[in-house]
């Protein structure tokens, strides 16, 4: 963000470097093909202009088959190579490393709300430590938003009604722009912010300075009691309700047959729409909490349930 004319975006994530190589390859291929088209067009137009009567126009290509097959096959091979390259990087962009730290993001008109596991909260700002992979778990309170950090070369639409994730490994200290990339109403252009990639030490200082006295899971625990969830789901309640300890990441047998992975989306559905995928062995007595919780509350509950230790068996 200096004063000069910018040509290239900053690079601050592990994929940005690979991305730039891919871009360079695309650019080289495009320029080569464009150059070919330009060159042939100007050459033919100049040489075979009607006023140039001296040129020999006989012996025109009649059979076009070998030409057609040639440029069709040539284009196809180049295209498929690009496809494979882009797909490979895309797949890796969708497989977060196991050690990634979760950070929750809630988009709403027109701000980004960030919730760290340790309880720190930010608006339109995200602080992360360099070299520590982060996995964002994102939800939207209203319409579709788009979480976009050009310096990371990453973008993900945040769709209401479900969780989406985005992971990155920030590899350069600095402050980078964050945008909303999906048009979301009047102040769409103002829904931007800053991502600060800090050194490990600075980040620890930042965490300490912004501590709120309780973790996200502890806020979820309070909500869990206030909403009366614990009345049935507590191990000692005596009501036939599933024990939530160690639920996250487990496969759950469903009543209609089959099983489902208890990921963020599953837990969300279980809270808001318990009749959709009821677990086997329990009656559907749980009420729906749809319309009673906002996304930040659901995120807190989710963090609480995910943090429940696996019950010793």
């Amino acid at each position, binding site marked *: 963000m200096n004063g000069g004319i*910018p*040509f*290239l*975006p900053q690079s601050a994530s592990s994929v940005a470097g690979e991305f730039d190589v*891919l*871009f360079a390859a*695309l650019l080289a291929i*495009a320029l080569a093909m464009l150059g070919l*088209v330009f060159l*042939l*067009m100007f050459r*033919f*137009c100049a040489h*075979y*202009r009607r006023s140039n009567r001296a040129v020999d*126009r*006989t*012996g*025109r*290509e009649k059979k*076009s088959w070998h*030409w*057609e097959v040639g*440029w*069709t096959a040539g*284009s*196809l091979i180049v*295209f498929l190579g*690009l*496809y494979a*390259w*882009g*797909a*490979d990087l*895309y*797949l890796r962009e*969708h497989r977060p490393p196991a050690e990634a730290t979760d950070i929750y993001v809630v988009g709403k008109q027109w701000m980004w709300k960030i919730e760290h596991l340790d309880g720190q909260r930010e608006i339109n700002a995200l602080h992360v430590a360099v070299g520590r992979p982060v996995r964002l778990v994102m939800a939207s309170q*209203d*319409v*579709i938003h*788009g979480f*976009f950090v050009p*310096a990371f*070369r990453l*973008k*993900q639409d945040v*769709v*209401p*009604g479900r969780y989406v994730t985005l992971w990155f490994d920030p590899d350069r200290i600095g402050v980078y722009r964050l*945008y909303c*990339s999906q*048009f*979301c*109403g*009047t102040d*769409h*252009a*103002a829904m931007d912010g800053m991502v600060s990639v800090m050194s490990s030490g600075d980040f620890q200082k930042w965490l300490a300075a912004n501590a709120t006295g309780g973790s996200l899971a502890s806020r979820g625990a309070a909500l869990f009691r206030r909403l009366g969830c614990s009345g049935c789901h507590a191990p000692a309640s005596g009501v036939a309700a599933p024990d939530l300890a160690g639920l996250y990441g487990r496969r759950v047998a469903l009543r209609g047959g089959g099983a489902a992975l208890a990921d963020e989306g599953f837990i969300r559905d279980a809270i808001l*729409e318990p009749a959709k995928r009821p677990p086997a062995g329990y009656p559907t007595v749980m009420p729906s909490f*749809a319309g009673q919780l906002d996304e930040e509350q659901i995120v807190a509950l989710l963090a609480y349930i995910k943090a429940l230790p696996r019950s010793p068996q």
Partner: protein
Amino acid sequence: MTVTTVAELPHERGGSYLTDGTTLASWLLTRDHKRIAILYTLTITAFFFIGGAAAAVIRLNLLTPEGTLVDAETYNRIFTLHGVVMVWLFLVPSIPTTFGNFLIPLMLGAKDLAFPRLNLLSWYLFVASGLIVLAGLIGGSVDTGWTFYEPLSSGYASGALVVVLLGIFVNGFSSILTGLNFVVSIHRLRAPGLTWYRLPIFCWSNYATAVIMMLATPVLAVTLMLVAVEHLWGVGVFDPTHGGDPLLFQHMFWFYSHPAVYIMILPGMGVISEIVPAFARKRLFGYHFVAWSSVAIAVVGFLVWGHHMFVAGESVYAALVFSFLSFIVAVPSAIKVFNWLATLHKGAISFEAPMLYALGFILLFTIGGLTGLFVATLAFDVHATATYFVVAHFHYIMVGGMVSAYFAALHFWWPKATGRLYPESWARFAAILIFFGFNLTFFPQFILGYLGMPRRYHAYPPEFQVWNVLSSAGASVLAAAYLLPLFYLGWSLWRGARAPANPWGATGLEWQTPSPPPSGNFARTPRISRPPYDYPEPAA
């Protein structure tokens, strides 16, 4: 199909479709495809300048990072107006309803399209849709963008949304009826001897376009209807608070709106395939490949819509499939470009305005197509989608490509349709000005997008200003260049020299009728025994 025809001067009284009836009613109740084409031309020209005015406001506003000309809400309304008007009231109907209507019966050797009443009805529906859409957009502050993404549109837009959606719904009917008319006419009204492989490419490409119009438009109509009802009832199938999926809207919307891109570009490719052989005095290279590549684009073009959703939350596996298919659909476009170039080889090329536009089309379309490869590449699209990179990419196709082709067609067939010659040097000047103005406007947007500037931003960070100012400067050149033809073509209607039947020495049935053609097109049904583009071979 001989090249040289007797240059008949058509100004005997009552001799042409223009002079057969001069009352207003004779125009408004006409069933003559040529008159309907003229009605369409006047209408879409008006819509083009309305959409262009909105673009001017956008570019003026983006001169400064703070976006001081209009406030955010107005800006959003303006770009919604720009998108809706340009897509449905100009680009989709542009070449098919004007040159398609005018030329297809002439090229088929027919007296009219199969359903002339339907053709007129389709124009009335188009005008009605335009008025409804404009009433909703200008009077009703709809600011959803032309894509009407859910749940923003049904849940958060003003009541006029329903008016705009109704307008687009009616517009869809118009488009469907035009498509139906073309498809049936090309199947059933070809003159004796006019086999499929003797059809001009313009007919092939309009046939492919018409198929898309018939089969994609209904899905858009029903999708927008679901949005409208959802808006009215406050609940619906795309509503996430009721278990609905906003991505379902995107699937159904892009099932139309991606093929719609081919509705916009295929007729342009048809125009270029007529003009390049005519000015190179040479048979079109690889006729069969150019013909079938139109059909291939139309069919494969239906299979790629998911590439608009790589970051939208669609399945990773679906993204892999859609990316693959998107690369496949680029192949037939590449085939066309190479065949046009090969047509130039050993031709006898002259550079009148239609040819300048056509050459400009090839270059701009190539840039648009190549950047299409960028955004078809999954990982690249993650960064570039919803930024100005995509804006630049599709403007290269639609403005650089389609609008250039429209102007090429306008100049090429102007003498045929009006019976007048336009002033050549003015036209060449405008063609060159459009080419440079266009590049100055839209090339900086590639850089902006790569830097990360999102689209639909009313204000932007200051580091992007340089490129935005360049783009706006280009837009002012482009605006002036687009206004020029209005004057010199208008002038030619009064003062232009009378046009002979075949001013370019082109092949094609339409050039064998007088300029302008008589109401019934042909006194006797022609018989065709030669392939198209039958330009003489040079003597050894």
